[in-house]
């Protein structure tokens, strides 16, 4: 059993849980994830490691309570325990000295981007953060993100084509004259897709953090398979980070929505209402 050392509602329905899991904390690296099971009846779900404290042996996770398991999780309080907590899984984020890196953080990405942005800055990069939410009340943890970046641009709301308020600041940075060497984006799949589409004409390496449905998280089942550059990869062991210009997004979105709704048509454009990532 893994006790909940702290619990905080960061924004409406978005929660931070600090879990006592020394063996995960000991090895965690930015960009990795954990698999958890709430109780004996529970399913296994992946969540990105939002932060970790090796001394105290704790690991932070941040999630929106939208699905069966995340809602169940959100009902737990400080002092309660969860049944299983395994990690760190997946490959760590690639940290190098690239030059100027833009980090786009949306939804739970506002939390999970923090250790990545921090590591990139410590490695000598200039880190420009962009945080965006549909509505201002869904912006959270900006102080920590700002501290992790060299500079943070905050934006909220939707433009006419829904995407513009996250894409606009990114475009401004891209067109601002300074060379951008890399873009890292964490957020709902459709946001990562449109960010990748936006950077493609500029040929700037764009790293996305994919979150397909997973079962074991160790490479055993293939539920998490994604197509990248025409090759099938297992996101849990080959990822979760991939080149956003090579990801087959329609496939990812369709596979993510296996268990949501029963409509014949899948909306692969921007924020379908069932998407568990909102």
């Amino acid at each position, binding site marked *: 059993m893994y006790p909940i050392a702290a619990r905080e509602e960061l924004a409406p329905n978005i929660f931070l849980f600090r879990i006592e899991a020394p*063996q*995960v904390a000991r*090895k965690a690296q930015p960009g990795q994830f954990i698999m958890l*099971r709430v109780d004996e*009846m*529970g*399913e*296994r779900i992946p969540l990105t490691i939002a932060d970790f404290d090796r001394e105290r042996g704790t690991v932070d996770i941040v999630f929106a309570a939208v699905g*069966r*398991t995340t809602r*169940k999780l959100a009902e737990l309080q400080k002092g309660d325990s969860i*049944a*299983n*907590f*395994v*990690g*760190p*899984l997946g490959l760590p984020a690639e940290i190098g000295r690239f030059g100027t890196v833009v980090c786009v953080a949306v939804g739970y990405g506002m939390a999970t981007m923090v250790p990545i942005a921090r590591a990139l800055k410590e490695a000598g990069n200039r880190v420009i953060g962009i945080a965006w939410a549909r509505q201002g009340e869904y912006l959270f943890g900006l102080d920590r993100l700002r501290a992790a970046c060299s500079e943070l641009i905050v934006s909220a709301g939707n433009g006419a084509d829904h995407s513009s308020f996250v894409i606009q600041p990114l475009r401004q940075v891209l067109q601002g004259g300074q060379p951008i060497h890399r873009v890292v984006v964490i957020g709902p799949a459709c946001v990562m897709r449109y960010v990748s589409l936006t950077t493609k004409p500029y040929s700037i390496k764009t790293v996305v953090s994919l979150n397909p449905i997973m*079962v*074991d998280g*160790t*490479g*055993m*089942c*293939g*539920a998490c*398979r*994604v*197509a990248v550059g025409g090759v*099938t990869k297992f996101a849990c*062991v080959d990822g979760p980070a991939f080149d956003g210009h090579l990801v087959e997004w*329609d*496939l990812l979105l*369709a*596979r993510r*929505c*296996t*268990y949501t709704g029963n*409509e*014949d*048509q*899948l909306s692969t454009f921007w924020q379908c209402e069932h998407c568990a990532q909102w």
Partner: protein
Amino acid sequence: MAKLNLNRVDMPIQDPKARGRNFSEVTLGYNPELSLEEALRCIQCPKPLCTQGCPVGIDIRDFIKPLREGNMEEAVRVLKSKNNLPAICGRVCPQESQCEAKCVVGKRGAPVAIGRLERFVADWEINSAYKAHVELPKPTGKRVAVIGSGPAGLTCGADLAWRGHQVTIYEALHVAGGVLVYGIPEFRLPKRIVQAEIDNIAALGVEIVLDTVVGRSVTIDELLADGYHAVFLGTGAGLPMFLNVPGENLNGIYSANEFLTRANLMKAYDFPRYDTPLKMGKRVAVVGGGNVAMDAARVALRLGAEQVYIVYRRSEVELPARHEEVEHAKEEGIIFHVLTNPVGFVGGGRGLVTGMECIRMKLGEPDASGRRRPIPMPGSEFLLPVDTVVVALGTTPNPIIAATTPGLQTTPHGTLVADEETGKTTKDRVWAGGDIVTGAATVISAMGAGKRAAASMDAFLKGGA
């Protein structure tokens, strides 16, 4: 002496119609009278050949003898002195090609039903208050880490505990048992039985640490530096193979591992009491012809599929599954499309699979494996309408351990290089056995490898080297 009955005693079995809709065990096991009748068919050979056919060397004659005399405790003791998982082996071992293939009675009629007797004795122990007493030797003070809690790891761990070493088993999943819990379905191997056998091993003082992915949470080198004197790798062959044909990532197409893990380990058959869902259609194609394919097909049927096909590229005689499993599948109504190979998948809205494009095959000359090579017949393509597909083409070892452990050598197939007799790997103080060395094989061969490695590790640990 009574005349030898050439026919073995039938084992009671659930009616095929009823069982195709439930997850209760298909075969029901002997009762005391039936077991006695079958045990009396053994002629108690002075030099029993059956034991030679057993990968762990069970003294078969010597456990059948007390069974005949009604001394169940002695039967359990003899059986368990060589096999720590007899209730499991009695159910899933391919006895027909091992001990029973060697049994002399088989020369004149049906061989003694050794597997059914083994199961009877083991179940008797589980259901009785009696526990085979094991006298553990004085602790040696040596610590061993066993990675993976499948049959290889459990057997190796138990054998080392028997020899006085302190054993910790590390398991990635949230339950111990490996394929026994995530792969083989409830109706063939009840999880209650697996748990009882694992509890017996834990009672030897073997510690089982769950939720630990070795290579990620902790590495082999860290374990060796952290006070473990030796390590055994029994991590199996968990990486599923796919067909690599167009459309294979459509929704509704599962690896057998995903399909069976959702159904067995996560208990999707009891959704929504359990949280894990399994999206199942009405027409299900299972690609492959091994035990895993049979299991997946029979699970699909029990989850409510109307038509379930086995699609296999060679002919029926080449089906690698155990004969008994094929028979059970047929009785339950599984439809066999042999000499048929998938070449692609087509999908509809929401990226859901709607059909499997197939081509008919014919058999040519024998290939390297000795089986006749399947050859596609041009122009024979056809579309099989399906809404769920399970790909059961086999598995290879998960690369996490090899990739994170310097000094471990692998073969081009991804298996570990290890000495066949001792299980010693290319890395100092590290042994391996089971599917990680052989590729996907059997429960009993994994147990045999675990046993041989335990003997070699014991010699190393006691040699004080």
